[in-house]
Protein backbone atom coordinates (compact mmCIF):
# COMPACT_ATOMS: atom_id res chain seq x y z
CA UNK A 1 0.00 0.00 0.00
CA UNK A 2 2.83 2.40 0.88
CA UNK A 3 4.59 1.66 -2.41
CA UNK A 4 1.34 2.23 -4.24
CA UNK A 5 0.75 5.47 -2.38
CA UNK A 6 4.22 6.74 -3.28
CA UNK A 7 3.84 5.78 -6.93
CA UNK A 8 0.39 7.31 -7.15
CA UNK A 9 1.61 10.55 -5.53
CA UNK A 10 4.55 10.70 -7.91
CA UNK A 11 2.14 10.28 -10.78
CA UNK A 12 0.00 13.10 -9.39
CA UNK A 13 2.96 15.48 -9.20
CA UNK A 14 4.24 14.59 -12.67
CA UNK A 15 0.74 15.01 -14.12
CA UNK A 16 0.44 18.39 -12.53
CA UNK A 17 3.79 19.51 -13.95
CA UNK A 18 2.88 18.23 -17.38
CA UNK A 19 -0.48 19.94 -17.12
CA UNK A 20 1.33 23.19 -16.37
CA UNK A 21 3.46 22.77 -19.50
CA UNK A 22 0.52 21.81 -21.73
CA UNK A 23 -1.58 24.67 -20.40
CA UNK A 24 1.17 27.22 -20.86
CA UNK A 25 2.13 26.10 -24.36
CA UNK A 26 -1.43 25.63 -25.62
CA UNK A 27 -2.33 29.14 -24.60
CA UNK A 28 0.74 30.67 -26.27
CA UNK A 29 0.76 28.59 -29.43
CA UNK A 30 -2.80 29.51 -30.31
CA UNK A 31 -3.38 32.73 -32.20
CA UNK A 32 -4.46 35.92 -30.42
CA UNK A 33 -2.35 38.59 -28.74
CA UNK A 34 -3.23 39.33 -25.13
CA UNK A 35 -1.72 42.80 -25.51
CA UNK A 36 -4.72 43.67 -27.68
CA UNK A 37 -7.01 43.45 -24.69
CA UNK A 38 -5.15 46.35 -23.06
CA UNK A 39 -5.40 48.55 -26.10
CA UNK A 40 -8.08 50.32 -28.01
CA UNK A 41 -8.59 49.80 -31.74
CA UNK A 42 -5.94 51.59 -33.85
CA UNK A 43 -3.12 51.54 -31.30
CA UNK A 44 0.31 52.46 -32.69
CA UNK A 45 3.02 49.78 -32.93
CA UNK A 46 4.86 51.55 -30.08
CA UNK A 47 1.82 51.28 -27.83
CA UNK A 48 1.44 47.60 -28.68
CA UNK A 49 5.12 47.04 -27.86
CA UNK A 50 4.74 48.90 -24.56
CA UNK A 51 1.68 46.83 -23.66
CA UNK A 52 3.53 43.61 -24.45
CA UNK A 53 6.41 44.73 -22.30
CA UNK A 54 4.08 45.63 -19.46
CA UNK A 55 2.56 42.16 -19.30
CA UNK A 56 5.84 40.41 -20.11
CA UNK A 57 4.80 38.66 -23.31
CA UNK A 58 7.80 40.23 -25.11
CA UNK A 59 10.17 37.98 -23.18
CA UNK A 60 11.26 34.60 -24.63
CA UNK A 61 8.79 31.77 -23.99
CA UNK A 62 11.11 29.62 -21.81
CA UNK A 63 11.79 32.63 -19.60
CA UNK A 64 8.06 33.33 -19.23
CA UNK A 65 7.45 29.69 -18.44
CA UNK A 66 10.17 29.41 -15.81
CA UNK A 67 9.00 32.55 -14.08
CA UNK A 68 5.37 31.30 -14.11
CA UNK A 69 6.40 27.90 -12.76
CA UNK A 70 8.63 29.45 -10.10
CA UNK A 71 5.78 31.56 -8.79
CA UNK A 72 3.41 28.64 -9.05
CA UNK A 73 5.63 26.69 -6.65
CA UNK A 74 4.90 29.33 -4.03
CA UNK A 75 1.16 29.29 -4.83
CA UNK A 76 1.46 32.63 -6.58
CA UNK A 77 -0.68 32.56 -9.72
CA UNK A 78 0.48 35.97 -10.96
CA UNK A 79 -1.51 39.10 -11.64
CA UNK A 80 -4.29 39.67 -14.12
CA UNK A 81 -3.11 41.43 -17.31
CA UNK A 82 -6.24 43.55 -17.28
CA UNK A 83 -6.97 44.47 -13.67
CA UNK A 84 -3.36 43.89 -12.41
CA UNK A 85 -4.89 42.30 -9.29
CA UNK A 86 -3.41 39.01 -8.06
CA UNK A 87 -5.21 36.00 -9.53
CA UNK A 88 -4.88 33.63 -6.56
CA UNK A 89 -7.00 35.54 -4.02
CA UNK A 90 -9.61 36.25 -6.68
CA UNK A 91 -9.89 32.54 -7.45
CA UNK A 92 -10.14 31.79 -3.73
CA UNK A 93 -12.97 34.31 -3.42
CA UNK A 94 -14.78 32.71 -6.35
CA UNK A 95 -14.39 29.22 -4.93
CA UNK A 96 -16.63 30.29 -2.05
CA UNK A 97 -19.45 30.04 -4.58
CA UNK A 98 -18.25 27.26 -6.87
CA UNK A 99 -17.22 24.70 -4.23
CA UNK A 100 -20.52 24.70 -2.30
CA UNK A 101 -22.40 24.66 -5.61
CA UNK A 102 -20.42 21.61 -6.74
CA UNK A 103 -20.62 19.69 -3.47
CA UNK A 104 -24.32 20.33 -2.88
CA UNK A 105 -25.18 19.30 -6.46
CA UNK A 106 -23.03 16.23 -6.12
CA UNK A 107 -24.59 15.12 -2.85
CA UNK A 108 -28.12 15.72 -4.15
CA UNK A 109 -27.37 13.81 -7.37
CA UNK A 110 -25.96 10.84 -5.45
CA UNK A 111 -28.86 10.80 -3.01
CA UNK A 112 -31.28 10.69 -5.94
CA UNK A 113 -29.33 8.42 -8.27
CA UNK A 114 -28.35 5.57 -5.96
CA UNK A 115 -31.86 4.48 -4.92
CA UNK A 116 -33.36 5.23 -8.33
CA UNK A 117 -30.59 3.34 -10.13
CA UNK A 118 -31.02 0.40 -7.79
CA UNK A 119 -34.76 0.26 -8.34
CA UNK A 120 -34.31 0.67 -12.10
CA UNK A 121 -32.10 -2.44 -12.08
CA UNK A 122 -34.02 -4.48 -9.52
CA UNK A 123 -37.31 -3.84 -11.26
CA UNK A 124 -35.86 -3.77 -14.76
CA UNK A 125 -38.78 -5.66 -16.32
CA UNK A 126 -41.58 -3.72 -14.69
CA UNK A 127 -43.14 -0.66 -16.26
CA UNK A 128 -41.66 1.76 -13.72
CA UNK A 129 -38.23 0.21 -14.11
CA UNK A 130 -38.42 1.02 -17.81
CA UNK A 131 -39.78 4.48 -17.12
CA UNK A 132 -36.84 5.23 -14.80
CA UNK A 133 -34.37 4.06 -17.45
CA UNK A 134 -36.17 6.14 -20.06
CA UNK A 135 -36.06 9.25 -17.90
CA UNK A 136 -32.33 8.83 -17.33
CA UNK A 137 -31.88 8.38 -21.09
CA UNK A 138 -33.65 11.73 -21.50
CA UNK A 139 -31.52 13.33 -18.80
CA UNK A 140 -28.21 12.64 -20.51
CA UNK A 141 -29.45 14.26 -23.72
CA UNK A 142 -30.53 17.56 -22.20
CA UNK A 143 -28.22 20.57 -22.29
CA UNK A 144 -27.65 21.57 -18.68
CA UNK A 145 -28.05 25.30 -19.35
CA UNK A 146 -31.44 24.69 -20.94
CA UNK A 147 -32.64 22.86 -17.82
CA UNK A 148 -31.47 25.91 -15.87
CA UNK A 149 -33.39 28.27 -18.16
CA UNK A 150 -36.58 26.22 -17.83
CA UNK A 151 -36.30 26.03 -14.05
CA UNK A 152 -35.76 29.79 -13.84
CA UNK A 153 -38.81 30.35 -16.00
CA UNK A 154 -41.02 28.17 -13.83
CA UNK A 155 -39.73 28.82 -10.31
CA UNK A 156 -38.44 32.38 -10.52
CA UNK A 157 -40.38 34.15 -13.22
CA UNK A 158 -43.77 32.39 -12.99
CA UNK A 159 -44.08 31.16 -9.41
CA UNK A 160 -41.64 33.72 -7.99
CA UNK A 161 -40.53 31.39 -5.20
CA UNK A 162 -36.78 31.44 -5.84
CA UNK A 163 -34.32 34.05 -7.10
CA UNK A 164 -33.49 33.89 -10.83
CA UNK A 165 -29.81 34.44 -10.25
CA UNK A 166 -27.08 36.29 -8.43
CA UNK A 167 -25.47 35.69 -5.07
CA UNK A 168 -25.46 37.75 -1.85
CA UNK A 169 -22.74 40.43 -1.81
CA UNK A 170 -21.59 39.32 1.64
CA UNK A 171 -21.25 35.68 0.51
CA UNK A 172 -22.19 33.31 3.33
CA UNK A 173 -22.81 35.94 6.03
CA UNK A 174 -26.48 34.98 5.80
CA UNK A 175 -26.40 31.23 5.05
CA UNK A 176 -30.14 30.99 4.41
CA UNK A 177 -29.97 33.71 1.79
CA UNK A 178 -26.91 32.16 0.14
CA UNK A 179 -28.56 28.74 0.09
CA UNK A 180 -31.72 30.16 -1.44
CA UNK A 181 -29.74 31.64 -4.31
CA UNK A 182 -27.94 28.34 -4.83
CA UNK A 183 -31.12 26.22 -4.81
CA UNK A 184 -31.99 26.42 -8.50
CA UNK A 185 -28.39 26.04 -9.76
CA UNK A 186 -27.91 23.03 -7.49
CA UNK A 187 -31.14 21.39 -8.66
CA UNK A 188 -30.20 22.09 -12.29
CA UNK A 189 -26.81 20.39 -12.06
CA UNK A 190 -28.09 17.57 -9.87
CA UNK A 191 -30.93 16.73 -12.28
CA UNK A 192 -28.64 16.36 -15.26
CA UNK A 193 -25.89 14.66 -13.31
CA UNK A 194 -28.13 12.12 -11.59
CA UNK A 195 -29.37 11.02 -15.02
CA UNK A 196 -25.96 9.69 -16.00
CA UNK A 197 -25.27 8.41 -12.50
CA UNK A 198 -28.50 6.40 -12.54
CA UNK A 199 -27.25 4.58 -15.61
CA UNK A 200 -24.02 3.59 -13.88
CA UNK A 201 -25.69 2.54 -10.64
CA UNK A 202 -28.23 0.57 -12.63
CA UNK A 203 -25.61 -1.29 -14.62
CA UNK A 204 -23.46 -1.99 -11.55
CA UNK A 205 -26.54 -3.36 -9.79
CA UNK A 206 -27.48 -5.48 -12.80
CA UNK A 207 -23.98 -6.99 -12.78
CA UNK A 208 -24.37 -7.90 -9.13
CA UNK A 209 -27.91 -9.26 -9.56
CA UNK A 210 -26.66 -11.60 -12.26
CA UNK A 211 -23.67 -12.79 -10.25
CA UNK A 212 -23.07 -16.35 -9.11
CA UNK A 213 -22.16 -15.33 -5.57
CA UNK A 214 -25.50 -13.67 -5.03
CA UNK A 215 -27.34 -16.70 -6.34
CA UNK A 216 -25.27 -18.98 -4.12
CA UNK A 217 -25.94 -16.83 -1.09
CA UNK A 218 -29.66 -16.94 -1.82
CA UNK A 219 -29.50 -20.71 -2.33
CA UNK A 220 -27.87 -21.05 1.07
CA UNK A 221 -30.89 -19.41 2.60
CA UNK A 222 -30.10 -15.70 2.88
CA UNK A 223 -32.95 -13.35 2.30
CA UNK A 224 -32.58 -11.08 -0.72
CA UNK A 225 -31.94 -8.07 1.50
CA UNK A 226 -29.29 -9.89 3.50
CA UNK A 227 -27.53 -11.31 0.41
CA UNK A 228 -27.56 -7.85 -1.16
CA UNK A 229 -26.24 -6.22 1.99
CA UNK A 230 -23.48 -8.73 2.66
CA UNK A 231 -22.31 -9.44 -0.89
CA UNK A 232 -24.05 -7.28 -3.44
CA UNK A 233 -23.49 -3.82 -2.08
CA UNK A 234 -19.75 -4.17 -1.59
CA UNK A 235 -19.29 -5.36 -5.13
CA UNK A 236 -21.57 -2.82 -6.72
CA UNK A 237 -20.01 0.12 -4.93
CA UNK A 238 -16.50 -0.32 -6.36
CA UNK A 239 -17.18 0.60 -10.00
CA UNK A 240 -19.61 3.30 -8.87
CA UNK A 241 -16.90 5.03 -6.82
CA UNK A 242 -14.59 5.43 -9.81
CA UNK A 243 -17.49 6.94 -11.73
CA UNK A 244 -18.33 9.19 -8.78
CA UNK A 245 -14.78 10.56 -8.96
CA UNK A 246 -15.20 11.39 -12.63
CA UNK A 247 -18.67 12.82 -12.06
CA UNK A 248 -17.56 15.00 -9.17
CA UNK A 249 -14.78 16.41 -11.31
CA UNK A 250 -17.11 17.08 -14.21
CA UNK A 251 -19.67 18.72 -11.92
CA UNK A 252 -17.00 21.10 -10.73
CA UNK A 253 -16.31 22.08 -14.31
CA UNK A 254 -19.88 21.84 -15.52
CA UNK A 255 -20.60 24.55 -12.99
CA UNK A 256 -18.95 26.94 -15.47
CA UNK A 257 -21.96 27.02 -17.78
CA UNK A 258 -24.58 26.85 -15.06
CA UNK A 259 -22.97 29.74 -13.21
CA UNK A 260 -23.39 31.83 -16.31
CA UNK A 261 -27.11 30.94 -16.59
CA UNK A 262 -27.67 32.08 -12.99
CA UNK A 263 -25.17 34.96 -13.04
CA UNK A 264 -23.31 33.47 -10.09
CA UNK A 265 -19.98 35.10 -9.22
CA UNK A 266 -18.08 31.79 -9.33
CA UNK A 267 -15.05 30.44 -11.11
CA UNK A 268 -17.03 29.99 -14.32
CA UNK A 269 -17.96 33.63 -14.66
CA UNK A 270 -14.35 34.60 -14.01
CA UNK A 271 -13.13 32.19 -16.66
CA UNK A 272 -15.59 33.37 -19.30
CA UNK A 273 -14.52 36.97 -18.67
CA UNK A 274 -10.83 36.04 -18.69
CA UNK A 275 -11.24 34.20 -21.98
CA UNK A 276 -12.98 37.16 -23.58
CA UNK A 277 -10.14 39.48 -22.51
CA UNK A 278 -7.28 37.08 -23.40
CA UNK A 279 -6.21 37.47 -19.79
CA UNK A 280 -3.61 34.66 -19.74
CA UNK A 281 -2.81 34.65 -16.00
CA UNK A 282 -6.51 34.44 -15.15
CA UNK A 283 -7.17 31.64 -17.66
CA UNK A 284 -4.00 29.78 -16.67
CA UNK A 285 -4.74 30.18 -12.99
CA UNK A 286 -8.31 28.91 -13.22
CA UNK A 287 -7.47 26.02 -15.49
CA UNK A 288 -4.52 25.08 -13.30
CA UNK A 289 -6.62 25.12 -10.14
CA UNK A 290 -9.36 23.17 -11.93
CA UNK A 291 -6.87 20.58 -13.16
CA UNK A 292 -5.45 20.31 -9.67
CA UNK A 293 -8.93 19.70 -8.27
CA UNK A 294 -9.73 17.13 -10.97
CA UNK A 295 -6.45 15.26 -10.43
CA UNK A 296 -6.81 15.26 -6.65
CA UNK A 297 -10.37 13.92 -6.93
CA UNK A 298 -9.11 11.14 -9.18
CA UNK A 299 -6.36 10.41 -6.67
CA UNK A 300 -8.86 10.25 -3.81
CA UNK A 301 -11.27 8.03 -5.78
CA UNK A 302 -8.44 5.58 -6.52
CA UNK A 303 -7.45 5.44 -2.87
CA UNK A 304 -11.00 4.92 -1.62
CA UNK A 305 -11.47 2.17 -4.18
CA UNK A 306 -8.36 0.39 -2.88
CA UNK A 307 -9.50 0.72 0.69
CA UNK A 308 -12.87 -0.79 -0.14
CA UNK A 309 -11.77 -3.52 -2.49
CA UNK A 310 -9.10 -5.86 -1.11
CA UNK A 311 -8.69 -7.43 -4.54
CA UNK A 312 -7.24 -4.17 -5.83
CA UNK A 313 -4.99 -3.84 -2.77
CA UNK A 314 -3.49 -7.29 -3.03
CA UNK A 315 -3.27 -7.67 -6.75
CA UNK A 316 0.11 -6.96 -8.30
CA UNK A 317 -1.49 -4.61 -10.78
CA UNK A 318 1.41 -2.62 -12.13
CA UNK A 319 -0.94 -0.21 -13.79
CA UNK A 320 -0.78 2.84 -11.61
CA UNK A 321 -3.64 4.51 -13.30
Amino acid at each position, binding site marked *: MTAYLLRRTAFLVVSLLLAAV*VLFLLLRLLP*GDPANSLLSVGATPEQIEAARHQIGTDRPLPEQFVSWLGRLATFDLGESFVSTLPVGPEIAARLVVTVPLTLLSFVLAVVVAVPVGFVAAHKANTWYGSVLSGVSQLGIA*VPVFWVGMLLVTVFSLSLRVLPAGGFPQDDWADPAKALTSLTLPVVTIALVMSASLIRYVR*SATLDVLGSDYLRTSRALGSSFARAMWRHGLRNAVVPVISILGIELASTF*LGAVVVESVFALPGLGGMLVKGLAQHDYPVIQGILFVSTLVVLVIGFAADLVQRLIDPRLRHSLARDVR
Partner: protein
Amino acid sequence: MSVEQALVGAPDGEGPKAATRHVSRSVTLTIGCVLVGVIVLVAVVSLFWLPFAPEDTSGGRLMPPGAPHLLGTDKLGRDLLTQLMIGARIALAAGAGSVVLGGAIGIVAGLAAGFATRWLDDVVSALLDILIAFPTLLLAMLVAATQAASLTSAIVAIGLAMSAIVARLTRVLVKRVLAHDFITAARTSGTSWPRVVLEHVVPNIWPTVSVNLALQFGLAVLAEASLSYLGLGAPPPNASWGRMLQEAQASVFIAPVGVIAPGVLIVVLVIGVNLVADGFRDVADPTRRRRR
Protein backbone atom coordinates in the same frame (compact mmCIF):
# COMPACT_ATOMS: atom_id res chain seq x y z
CA MET B 1 -17.34 -1.82 -14.62
CA SER B 2 -13.99 -0.65 -15.90
CA VAL B 3 -12.66 2.62 -17.16
CA GLU B 4 -13.20 1.70 -20.73
CA GLN B 5 -16.83 0.94 -20.08
CA ALA B 6 -17.05 4.29 -18.42
CA LEU B 7 -15.68 5.84 -21.58
CA VAL B 8 -18.05 3.94 -23.81
CA GLY B 9 -20.90 5.26 -21.73
CA ALA B 10 -22.96 3.43 -19.21
CA PRO B 11 -23.37 -0.11 -20.41
CA ASP B 12 -26.90 -1.26 -20.40
CA GLY B 13 -28.30 -4.24 -18.70
CA GLU B 14 -26.88 -7.62 -19.39
CA GLY B 15 -28.37 -8.92 -16.22
CA PRO B 16 -30.59 -11.93 -15.85
CA LYS B 17 -33.68 -9.98 -16.70
CA ALA B 18 -32.43 -8.87 -20.08
CA ALA B 19 -34.26 -11.64 -21.91
CA THR B 20 -36.79 -9.33 -23.48
CA ARG B 21 -34.22 -6.75 -24.40
CA HIS B 22 -33.33 -8.19 -27.77
CA VAL B 23 -36.72 -7.24 -29.10
CA SER B 24 -36.55 -3.77 -27.60
CA ARG B 25 -33.10 -3.36 -29.20
CA SER B 26 -34.45 -3.16 -32.72
CA VAL B 27 -37.17 -0.81 -31.48
CA THR B 28 -34.44 1.34 -29.93
CA LEU B 29 -32.53 1.44 -33.18
CA THR B 30 -35.66 2.31 -35.16
CA ILE B 31 -36.72 5.15 -32.87
CA GLY B 32 -33.15 6.48 -32.86
CA CYS B 33 -32.95 6.39 -36.64
CA VAL B 34 -36.28 8.18 -36.98
CA LEU B 35 -35.26 10.97 -34.57
CA VAL B 36 -31.88 11.49 -36.23
CA GLY B 37 -33.49 11.14 -39.64
CA VAL B 38 -35.92 13.99 -38.93
CA ILE B 39 -33.09 16.36 -38.01
CA VAL B 40 -30.99 15.30 -41.01
CA LEU B 41 -34.00 15.81 -43.28
CA VAL B 42 -34.58 19.30 -41.90
CA ALA B 43 -30.91 20.15 -42.42
CA VAL B 44 -30.95 18.86 -46.00
CA VAL B 45 -34.15 20.73 -46.83
CA SER B 46 -32.65 23.91 -45.37
CA LEU B 47 -29.92 23.74 -48.02
CA PHE B 48 -32.49 24.06 -50.81
CA TRP B 49 -35.47 25.81 -49.29
CA LEU B 50 -36.11 28.04 -46.31
CA PRO B 51 -39.46 29.62 -45.38
CA PHE B 52 -37.80 33.06 -45.24
CA ALA B 53 -34.39 34.50 -46.01
CA PRO B 54 -32.20 34.07 -42.89
CA GLU B 55 -31.65 37.83 -42.61
CA ASP B 56 -35.22 38.84 -43.41
CA THR B 57 -36.35 40.94 -40.44
CA SER B 58 -39.49 42.32 -42.07
CA GLY B 59 -41.84 40.15 -39.99
CA GLY B 60 -41.78 42.32 -36.87
CA ARG B 61 -40.12 41.43 -33.59
CA LEU B 62 -41.15 38.57 -31.31
CA MET B 63 -44.28 37.76 -33.28
CA PRO B 64 -46.35 34.86 -31.91
CA PRO B 65 -46.68 31.67 -33.98
CA GLY B 66 -49.13 31.91 -36.89
CA ALA B 67 -49.18 32.71 -40.59
CA PRO B 68 -46.89 33.56 -42.25
CA HIS B 69 -44.34 32.87 -39.48
CA LEU B 70 -45.30 29.37 -38.37
CA LEU B 71 -43.25 29.51 -35.16
CA GLY B 72 -43.14 33.28 -34.80
CA THR B 73 -40.09 35.53 -34.99
CA ASP B 74 -37.10 36.23 -32.75
CA LYS B 75 -36.13 39.49 -31.07
CA LEU B 76 -34.66 40.85 -34.31
CA GLY B 77 -37.73 39.87 -36.34
CA ARG B 78 -36.13 36.86 -38.02
CA ASP B 79 -38.33 33.85 -38.76
CA LEU B 80 -37.82 31.28 -36.01
CA LEU B 81 -38.49 28.23 -38.19
CA THR B 82 -35.85 29.42 -40.65
CA GLN B 83 -33.34 29.88 -37.85
CA LEU B 84 -34.13 26.46 -36.41
CA MET B 85 -33.61 24.82 -39.80
CA ILE B 86 -30.22 26.47 -40.22
CA GLY B 87 -29.43 25.43 -36.65
CA ALA B 88 -29.98 21.78 -37.61
CA ARG B 89 -27.25 22.17 -40.21
CA ILE B 90 -24.88 23.67 -37.67
CA ALA B 91 -25.59 21.07 -34.99
CA LEU B 92 -25.00 18.22 -37.43
CA ALA B 93 -21.86 19.88 -38.79
CA ALA B 94 -20.55 20.35 -35.25
CA GLY B 95 -21.24 16.73 -34.34
CA ALA B 96 -19.92 15.24 -37.57
CA GLY B 97 -16.90 17.53 -37.77
CA SER B 98 -15.82 16.85 -34.20
CA VAL B 99 -16.30 13.10 -34.57
CA VAL B 100 -14.31 12.96 -37.81
CA LEU B 101 -11.49 15.05 -36.36
CA GLY B 102 -11.49 13.52 -32.88
CA GLY B 103 -11.99 10.02 -34.25
CA ALA B 104 -9.16 10.28 -36.78
CA ILE B 105 -6.63 11.70 -34.33
CA GLY B 106 -7.81 9.51 -31.47
CA ILE B 107 -7.79 6.21 -33.36
CA VAL B 108 -4.35 6.82 -34.90
CA ALA B 109 -2.87 7.93 -31.57
CA GLY B 110 -4.56 5.06 -29.74
CA LEU B 111 -3.25 2.50 -32.25
CA ALA B 112 0.24 3.96 -31.94
CA ALA B 113 0.11 3.90 -28.13
CA GLY B 114 -1.30 0.38 -28.18
CA PHE B 115 1.62 -0.86 -30.24
CA ALA B 116 4.26 1.27 -28.53
CA THR B 117 6.94 -0.05 -26.24
CA ARG B 118 6.32 0.07 -22.53
CA TRP B 119 8.19 3.32 -21.99
CA LEU B 120 6.59 5.26 -24.82
CA ASP B 121 3.20 3.83 -23.93
CA ASP B 122 3.54 5.06 -20.35
CA VAL B 123 4.38 8.56 -21.53
CA VAL B 124 1.53 8.67 -24.04
CA SER B 125 -1.05 7.35 -21.59
CA ALA B 126 0.08 9.78 -18.89
CA LEU B 127 -0.36 12.61 -21.40
CA LEU B 128 -3.79 11.31 -22.34
CA ASP B 129 -4.80 11.13 -18.68
CA ILE B 130 -3.85 14.75 -18.25
CA LEU B 131 -5.66 15.80 -21.41
CA ILE B 132 -8.75 13.97 -20.14
CA ALA B 133 -8.38 15.74 -16.80
CA PHE B 134 -9.16 18.94 -18.74
CA PRO B 135 -12.78 18.29 -19.52
CA THR B 136 -13.98 18.76 -23.06
CA LEU B 137 -15.78 21.99 -22.42
CA LEU B 138 -12.84 23.78 -20.79
CA LEU B 139 -10.44 22.66 -23.48
CA ALA B 140 -12.95 23.76 -26.08
CA MET B 141 -13.37 27.13 -24.38
CA LEU B 142 -9.62 27.59 -24.36
CA VAL B 143 -9.24 26.89 -28.07
CA ALA B 144 -12.38 28.80 -28.98
CA ALA B 145 -11.29 31.88 -27.04
CA THR B 146 -7.78 32.22 -28.37
CA GLN B 147 -9.07 32.33 -31.93
CA ALA B 148 -11.95 34.35 -33.15
CA ALA B 149 -14.87 32.19 -32.11
CA SER B 150 -16.40 30.35 -35.06
CA LEU B 151 -18.01 27.04 -35.88
CA THR B 152 -14.62 25.78 -37.05
CA SER B 153 -12.88 26.75 -33.83
CA ALA B 154 -15.64 25.05 -31.84
CA ILE B 155 -15.31 21.89 -33.94
CA VAL B 156 -11.51 21.89 -33.62
CA ALA B 157 -11.77 22.40 -29.88
CA ILE B 158 -14.39 19.71 -29.30
CA GLY B 159 -12.64 17.34 -31.71
CA LEU B 160 -9.27 17.75 -29.96
CA ALA B 161 -10.78 17.17 -26.54
CA MET B 162 -12.62 14.15 -27.89
CA SER B 163 -9.49 12.69 -29.47
CA ALA B 164 -7.93 12.11 -26.04
CA ILE B 165 -10.93 10.04 -24.94
CA VAL B 166 -11.04 8.08 -28.20
CA ALA B 167 -7.27 7.51 -28.04
CA ARG B 168 -7.42 6.11 -24.54
CA LEU B 169 -10.28 3.78 -25.41
CA THR B 170 -8.53 2.63 -28.62
CA ARG B 171 -5.30 1.99 -26.73
CA VAL B 172 -6.99 -0.25 -24.16
CA LEU B 173 -8.83 -2.17 -26.87
CA VAL B 174 -5.69 -2.61 -28.99
CA LYS B 175 -3.78 -3.94 -25.99
CA ARG B 176 -6.51 -6.44 -25.33
CA VAL B 177 -6.65 -7.65 -28.95
CA LEU B 178 -2.86 -7.95 -29.15
CA ALA B 179 -2.86 -10.31 -26.16
CA HIS B 180 -4.86 -12.88 -28.13
CA ASP B 181 -3.32 -16.01 -29.57
CA PHE B 182 -4.59 -15.32 -33.05
CA ILE B 183 -2.26 -12.33 -33.25
CA THR B 184 0.72 -14.51 -32.35
CA ALA B 185 -0.52 -17.07 -34.85
CA ALA B 186 -0.81 -14.47 -37.57
CA ARG B 187 2.67 -13.13 -36.81
CA THR B 188 4.32 -16.56 -36.74
CA SER B 189 2.69 -17.45 -40.01
CA GLY B 190 4.39 -14.45 -41.54
CA THR B 191 1.73 -11.73 -41.61
CA SER B 192 3.28 -8.26 -41.56
CA TRP B 193 2.33 -5.82 -38.78
CA PRO B 194 0.41 -3.49 -41.11
CA ARG B 195 -1.69 -6.44 -42.30
CA VAL B 196 -2.24 -7.56 -38.72
CA VAL B 197 -3.56 -4.10 -37.94
CA LEU B 198 -5.86 -4.04 -40.94
CA GLU B 199 -7.11 -7.61 -40.78
CA HIS B 200 -7.18 -8.36 -37.07
CA VAL B 201 -6.86 -5.28 -34.88
CA VAL B 202 -9.15 -2.80 -36.63
CA PRO B 203 -12.06 -5.24 -37.20
CA ASN B 204 -11.90 -6.25 -33.55
CA ILE B 205 -11.85 -2.80 -32.04
CA TRP B 206 -14.19 -1.13 -34.53
CA PRO B 207 -17.53 -2.16 -32.99
CA THR B 208 -16.69 -0.64 -29.62
CA VAL B 209 -14.96 2.39 -31.10
CA SER B 210 -17.80 3.19 -33.50
CA VAL B 211 -20.42 2.97 -30.76
CA ASN B 212 -18.29 5.28 -28.66
CA LEU B 213 -17.97 7.69 -31.59
CA ALA B 214 -21.75 7.77 -31.90
CA LEU B 215 -22.08 8.65 -28.21
CA GLN B 216 -19.35 11.27 -28.68
CA PHE B 217 -21.41 12.75 -31.52
CA GLY B 218 -24.19 13.47 -29.05
CA LEU B 219 -21.76 14.92 -26.52
CA ALA B 220 -20.26 17.11 -29.26
CA VAL B 221 -23.70 18.49 -30.13
CA LEU B 222 -24.24 19.33 -26.44
CA ALA B 223 -20.77 20.86 -26.15
CA GLU B 224 -21.30 23.02 -29.23
CA ALA B 225 -24.62 24.21 -27.82
CA SER B 226 -22.92 25.13 -24.54
CA LEU B 227 -20.10 26.92 -26.33
CA SER B 228 -22.44 28.97 -28.47
CA TYR B 229 -24.59 29.67 -25.43
CA LEU B 230 -21.48 31.19 -23.83
CA GLY B 231 -20.78 33.13 -27.04
CA LEU B 232 -17.84 30.94 -28.05
CA GLY B 233 -19.44 29.19 -31.02
CA ALA B 234 -20.54 30.17 -34.49
CA PRO B 235 -20.90 33.96 -34.57
CA PRO B 236 -24.05 35.70 -35.87
CA PRO B 237 -25.72 35.54 -38.37
CA ASN B 238 -25.26 31.76 -38.12
CA ALA B 239 -28.14 30.41 -36.12
CA SER B 240 -26.78 27.87 -33.66
CA TRP B 241 -29.39 26.37 -31.32
CA GLY B 242 -27.24 27.24 -28.32
CA ARG B 243 -27.01 30.89 -29.27
CA MET B 244 -30.70 31.04 -30.15
CA LEU B 245 -31.44 29.89 -26.59
CA GLN B 246 -29.15 32.52 -25.16
CA GLU B 247 -30.81 35.25 -27.25
CA ALA B 248 -34.34 34.08 -26.46
CA GLN B 249 -33.72 33.81 -22.70
CA ALA B 250 -34.73 37.38 -21.95
CA SER B 251 -38.06 37.18 -23.76
CA VAL B 252 -39.26 33.84 -22.47
CA PHE B 253 -42.75 35.13 -21.63
CA ILE B 254 -43.38 37.09 -24.81
CA ALA B 255 -42.01 34.36 -27.06
CA PRO B 256 -41.78 31.04 -25.21
CA VAL B 257 -41.36 29.09 -28.46
CA GLY B 258 -37.91 30.64 -28.84
CA VAL B 259 -36.80 29.07 -25.57
CA ILE B 260 -38.55 25.74 -26.02
CA ALA B 261 -38.00 24.83 -29.67
CA PRO B 262 -34.16 24.92 -29.89
CA GLY B 263 -33.86 22.96 -26.64
CA VAL B 264 -36.31 20.31 -27.80
CA LEU B 265 -34.43 19.91 -31.07
CA ILE B 266 -31.11 19.46 -29.23
CA VAL B 267 -32.71 16.80 -27.03
CA VAL B 268 -34.28 15.05 -30.06
CA LEU B 269 -30.96 14.91 -31.89
CA VAL B 270 -28.90 13.75 -28.90
CA ILE B 271 -31.43 11.13 -27.76
CA GLY B 272 -31.70 9.91 -31.33
CA VAL B 273 -27.94 9.50 -31.64
CA ASN B 274 -27.70 7.76 -28.26
CA LEU B 275 -30.49 5.34 -29.16
CA VAL B 276 -28.81 4.57 -32.48
CA ALA B 277 -25.55 3.92 -30.60
CA ASP B 278 -27.32 1.62 -28.13
CA GLY B 279 -29.06 -0.32 -30.85
CA PHE B 280 -25.99 -0.39 -33.09
CA ARG B 281 -23.92 -1.89 -30.29
CA ASP B 282 -25.60 -5.23 -30.83
CA VAL B 283 -25.63 -5.11 -34.59
CA ALA B 284 -21.97 -4.15 -34.76
CA ASP B 285 -20.65 -6.58 -32.19
CA PRO B 286 -21.37 -10.23 -32.97
CA THR B 287 -19.87 -11.38 -29.66
CA ARG B 288 -22.55 -9.47 -27.75
CA ARG B 289 -25.27 -10.93 -29.91
CA ARG B 290 -24.17 -14.49 -29.32
CA ARG B 291 -24.07 -14.02 -25.57
CA ARG B 292 -27.78 -13.55 -25.40
